[in-house]
């Protein structure tokens, strides 16, 4: 028996998704709470799952490399683990200053 084998997560958990700028416009809403599969491991996994939900998400994430993400208001990368993040944001590269 391999004691180190990770136990796969099951079920879903509620996550608040927030969108900004043209990501918000393409998704068609500023925020939503979705029950996401608990076995989604990374930001990229979540993006893949969202794109399967509809054309609006496909439009928002047409160029995945451009869209940025934040987990609980901290910048994240596509391979960042979602962990227990409750608020996940997607937005274009920033243009403040």
């Amino acid at each position, binding site marked *: 028996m391999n004691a180190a084998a990770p136990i796969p997560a099951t079920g879903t958990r509620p996550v608040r998704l*927030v969108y*900004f*700028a*043209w990501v918000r416009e393409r998704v068609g809403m500023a925020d939503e709470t979705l029950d996401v599969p608990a076995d989604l491991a990374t930001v990229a996994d979540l993006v893949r799952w969202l794109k399967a939900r509809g054309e609006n998400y496909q439009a928002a994430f047409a160029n995945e490399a451009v869209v940025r993400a*934040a987990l609980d*208001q*901290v*910048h994240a990368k596509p391979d960042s683990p979602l962990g227990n993040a409750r608020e996940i*944001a997607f*937005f*274009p*590269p*920033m*243009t*403040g*200053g």
Partner: protein
Amino acid sequence: MTPLIRIQREDFSLQDEIDALAAGRADIGAVVSFIGLCRDEAGTLAALELEHYPGMAEAEIGRVAAEAAARWPLIGLVAIHRYGLIRPGEQIVLVLAASVHRRAAFEAADFMMDYLKTRAPFWKREHRADGTLGGWVEAKADDDDAAERWNR
């Protein structure tokens, strides 16, 4: 040294912020200020609309400020960023860095602006003088390069 971070719709006054920073102390030898203005090079812009991520904007600028405070011996650090509709000629952002000597103040202010542009969650969109809504301003690779140079 606790950095002062403000995200606000209202305009700000450079002199008021310097006065507040220096009030009641005489150990500051240098204050470097940077103000970013809304510019209209082509004469076609009615206003810039700045959208931001409330909560994260304050938090992220706070993280950048903490990095600046760790790198340079600062006495004071201020970052104010506006959101909403801002017309050409109006102020968008203020950074103040105060130190005993000028070098730390210059470098910290420069660092703050480079990272503020690439990490603070703000997005600009153009409202044109002819009444139409313009596109979202695109991020510049130059800005990423400018931020990256602090890692070299």
